[in-house]
């Protein structure tokens, strides 16, 4: 899952070293457009549905946080 997620993120923002960053949203590295793209790709790739109230910075600040979110959603499905 990690490799799939990193490939997806790299396609959206090839200029970002995702594994090194710890504040992707808080530091403004990812903006609202990136969030739209990432959420849509995560939904399609992992068969999950990210809800509006899950669009919290904490869920997208790191790769680990995104993986945690996907795993939580898969358990819920």
């Amino acid at each position, binding site marked *: 899952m990690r490799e799939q997620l990193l490939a997806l993120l790299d396609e*959206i923002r090839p*200029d970002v070293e995702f594994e090194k960053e710890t504040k992707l949203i808080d530091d*403004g590295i990812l903006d*609202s457009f990136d969030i739209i793209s990432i959420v849509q790709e995560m939904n399609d790739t992992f068969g999950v549905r990210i809800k509006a109230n899950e*669009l*919290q910075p904490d869920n997208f600040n790191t790769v680990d946080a995104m993986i945690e979110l996907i795993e939580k959603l898969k358990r819920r499905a």
Partner: protein
Amino acid sequence: MWKIESLAQYNQLIDRAEQQGFALTNCFFLPAAVQKKVEDGTLYGLEVGSGLLLLDDNGGFYRCYYYLSPQGKPDRLTLDKNAVIEFPFNGKMGERQRQQVSLIDRMGFRLGRESGMMSAAPTALIGHGQAQERCSGAQSRDAEGIMALLTGCFNPMYAFLPDRKALSDAIDQGRVLVVREGDRVAAALVSGFEKRIATVNQVAVDPDYRRRGYAGALMRTYHSLYVGRAASFRHWVDINNVPAVNMYLGLGYTFSLRRANEYIM
């Protein structure tokens, strides 16, 4: 149509829309953005037949966000103001995107503008680091002239124009550049700088003063303002505005994959 009075009400609406299978959406607000719109009293909800619309009242028009069913047949809309739907996508129109555009069309919107994002690293900029002689920082006395210039040059449904207060703040913060011809503002550039990203919000030249290189001069001066601090320079451009695109390409910008179509009614 009803006003959304709280973040809790907003969350309930969205939860219900998602439970009803309204899976196609262009709405990805972070909670802080929703909270501000609710506090400003600008956010409304509207059911459209197998879908939900959120309307953000911008004064003269609504900015619309939708939750729609892929199998739905939303109603053709009749609104009391003009409206715009911003539809972002990453480089390519796939099946999911085409589905949404069909539904947007069904509601009565038509394509207004196609925008693309251009960006440049500081090292890619051409002719940066040199403030241009004709350009200077805007003063508060320029505000009225700048507002007139911006509203004359841009459609507010596409351009996210600043209101008077936002423009005043931008001038005070040194983010607005002008070229003056006598007492007249002949050209203006409104910039932004947040979290190491420098942006051009608007650059406009009075039609009486075009073809004098003022836009390029403003851009070079803007670059000199931020080149020591910004990790990236970005802006959105109408991809069919060929003179503007050529100017940006000549300054070292390239197109990213980001696109945003604006559908209007």
